[in-house]
């Protein structure tokens, strides 16, 4: 299954928002989540280098995909994260 999401963070998927997203994707294990631009090659969402290489800016649409047990919950969580402006969130203590 997959979700199309528009990235809300001001800096896109770079810097802190990218780190927060990748950690969340790592935490989804054993569910393997991929991220891609629409029609593009799916990349491992738990790989910081892969996520950075997409060069995602604010307002870019990306596709998240996963299969198997827990896939739906993981996708919901990650999609919600991308739809939040993580640059506007205060840094955690």
């Amino acid at each position, binding site marked *: 299954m997959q979700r199309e999401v528009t990235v809300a963070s*001001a*800096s*896109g998927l*770079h*810097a*802190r928002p*990218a*780190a927060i997203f*990748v*950690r969340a994707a790592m935490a989804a294990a054993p569910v393997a989540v991929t991220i891609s631009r629409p029609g593009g090659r799916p990349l*491992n969402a*738990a*790989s*910081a*280098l*892969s996520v*950075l*290489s997409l*060069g995602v*800016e*604010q307002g870019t649409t990306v596709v998240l995909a996963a299969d198997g047990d827990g896939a739906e919950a993981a996708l919901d969580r990650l999609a919600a994260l991308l739809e939040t402006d993580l*640059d506007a969130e205060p*840094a*955690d*203590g």
Partner: protein
Amino acid sequence: MGERATVLVGVALSGVGVSPGSAGGPVYRKGDPPRLPAPVPVTDAAAERGRAHDALDAVAAELTARARECPPGHQRDIVDALALIAADPLLADGVDDAVAAGHDAPHAVDAAFAQQREMLESLGGMLAERAADLGDLRDRAVAWLLGVPMPGVPRPGVPYVLVARDLAPVDTAALDPHQVRALVTDEGGPTSHTAILATALGIPAVVACRGVLDVADGTLVVVDGDSGRVDVGVDEAAVADVMAAAQRRAARLAESRGPGMTADGHRVALYLNIGSAADADAVARVDAEGVGLFRTEFLFLDRTTAPTVDEQRESYAAVFAACGGRPVVVRTLDAGADKPLPFLGPDTSPNPALGVRGLRIDRLQPEILDVQLDAMTRAAASTGADVRVMAPMVATAAEAGAFAARVRGHGLPVAGVMVEIPAAALQAERIFAAGVDFVSIGTNDLSQYTMAADRQAGSLADLLDAWQPALLRLVGMCGDAGRAAGKPVGVCGEAAADPLLAPVLVGLGVTSLSMSAVSVAAVREALAAVTLDECRVLAAAALAAASPADAREAVRAAL
């Protein structure tokens, strides 16, 4: 580095003092990037893979631990992102492929990083900059495998003097001022990132100190951040003396209050350089007379579009309010060159330092300045603050006059310009005549442009020294023009924070000095020790000297 280091005793090394004060203690060196040994044939591929993975895990764990020690904010985010990249499955996959192709663990790690580095570099832009981070991570993983010291700031567990070839931003920001008593680097210049950071933390620092890497770990040294002298192989008593004196000095300076003035009562306003409302809190703490340089760049960093009027007004108002009625000199956006901003688009000019930066951006995008001035006007009105505005990178009197008119057109009464380009210093009289109310000399850029020497070029550090007689002459021309026009001449570069240079600048006609909070007390104390006439004598002595070293010596001798 370890094998060629020798214990030097009774030797004095010399560099450029960039952060004042003296301190002593044992030397501990930051590890150099490790070199790969000759390849070893692999007999147990699984074990080799395991070692390589352990190295990546160790690097990630070390950085994660370091991130936790950073206060929340930009610095922690950087270290945290590095930890995440070290743990990237693409690197682990690359290592597996390389081991399968017959490489030993260190070479496999090297190959995996090289592959990812190439990928990022091929994507260009911001991602190409991340490639340097991969180089740093590779060095750490290889060092772990070879059993040599991790590149990065050492942690001997006792207060020490940190010695390095040069320091990367990731190292300098992780420094603990309670553990690191002084910094000495073999490379780096007086306006380098290291120098600026050391000054801000209040740690004595000497840069461009050749030979310091040959001092073995544990050797006791005494570092003089004023003169640039490093005494190697001193005894415990010498270190204890210096530390006791440093403590007395710190206690005395902590008590320092009141306006800046010479011994005979000639006022020299002491201001702070700040970049945010948080920095502005220091104005009252160190009893500075206001803000001499409020950098507005922070609002524009990591932005793909310019911040709105309201957003800017709120940020400016927060700073104005934090200054509690003391004057604030705001510098309009100083982007370009070493401070590229995404929303301005990529700078593809071959020589950005000489390109469209500072006020020159106004030629292409005038709305940026208008929005800034509009926001400043509203913030000034809502807080009742004494706001003065200045433009960076002004070259001609015509630019200065046009800027002053723009500022007044928006309803702000006081307009000035920065003097960073030699042309502006040479034409200071005309710049005042064009209608500006004050000038502020940015000595870092003025050095760079006067000496045609890149601020980042460590091997040119001697040229960038603020004591260069040519630079002091340009400062003197501004001072003369200011005196003739009856208008203020400030200095807001690193030079303003040098207690030995402060009286010289005043003697050259400078009327205010703007610096980081930690430097105010020492500069106040230095000025209080001399009369205005003595300042003029010191200025003449510095101008007459043939070199920065001679100038320092002449001023010390005359004091």
